């Protein structure tokens, strides 16, 4: 898929940046002229992915979260959220509904919600090296880049 536009952002894994990340993603995605429902879905998926970095990738420290947003041909928004944190031992298990290592403060529904709101969610992770989550969603009706 050809890339039409892209932005990259690096920010520290402070919980206050969860709102910043979903707001920034919504601003970038708005050029796709999507519905409010689609915009809400995208903000939610970004919030879940970035919260995972804050809570799980860097549990005892502040690390860097790298977010890359791309608009691809065919009105597809791609969101990549990457960290160099702790990594996930068992990705399949982490994606199961209600599974969490975050205690009762977490619902274990983060990946379930990402999967439900996006067309595809790919997770690559290596313990000790970090995690990359790449999500895609086809949105809107009119072409981007005008």
């Amino acid at each position, binding site marked *: 898929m050809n890339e039409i536009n892209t932005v990259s952002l690096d920010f520290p894994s402070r*919980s*206050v940046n*969860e*709102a910043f990340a*979903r707001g920034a993603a919504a601003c970038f995605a708005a050029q796709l002229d999507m519905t*409010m*429902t689609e915009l*809400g*879905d995208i*903000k*939610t998926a970004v*919030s*879940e992915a970035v*919260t995972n970095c*804050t*809570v799980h990738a860097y549990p005892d420290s502040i690390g860097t979260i790298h977010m890359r947003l791309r608009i691809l041909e065919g009105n597809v928004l791609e969101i990549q959220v990457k960290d160099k944190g702790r990594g996930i031992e068992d990705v399949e298990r982490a994606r199961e*509904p209600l599974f969490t290592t975050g205690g*009762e*403060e*977490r*619902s274990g*529904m*983060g990946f*379930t*919600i990402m999967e*439900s*709101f996006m067309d595809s969610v790919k997770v690559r992770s290596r313990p000790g090296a970090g995690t990359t989550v790449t999500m895609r969603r086809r949105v809107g009706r009119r072409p981007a880049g005008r």
Partner: protein
Amino acid sequence: MKLTSNFAGGRLTVEVSGELDHHGAGELMAKLTERLESDLPRECVLDLRELKFMDSSGIAVMMRVTKRMRALGGRLRVENVREQPRRVIEASGIGKIIEIDG
């Protein structure tokens, strides 16, 4: 995220406004716990008419309040839910165990 509460006739009504994510969920849960333990309500109502955004952190809060309300012999009801939080609630499946109105 802001919270206002009112306790009357055994019912604790809590209005949550703004955006509810992991950043604000800890503070919300602490305040809710304080209200639940001091009022010991028969019913807890979360009024979400002014809640513009919620992610799965809100689901965790609802699960914890449900657990506590059941231990108190009461129940949790969630009302006036906007579209975005509603979609999160539906995707999580928590609507099967919590009463959601309007």
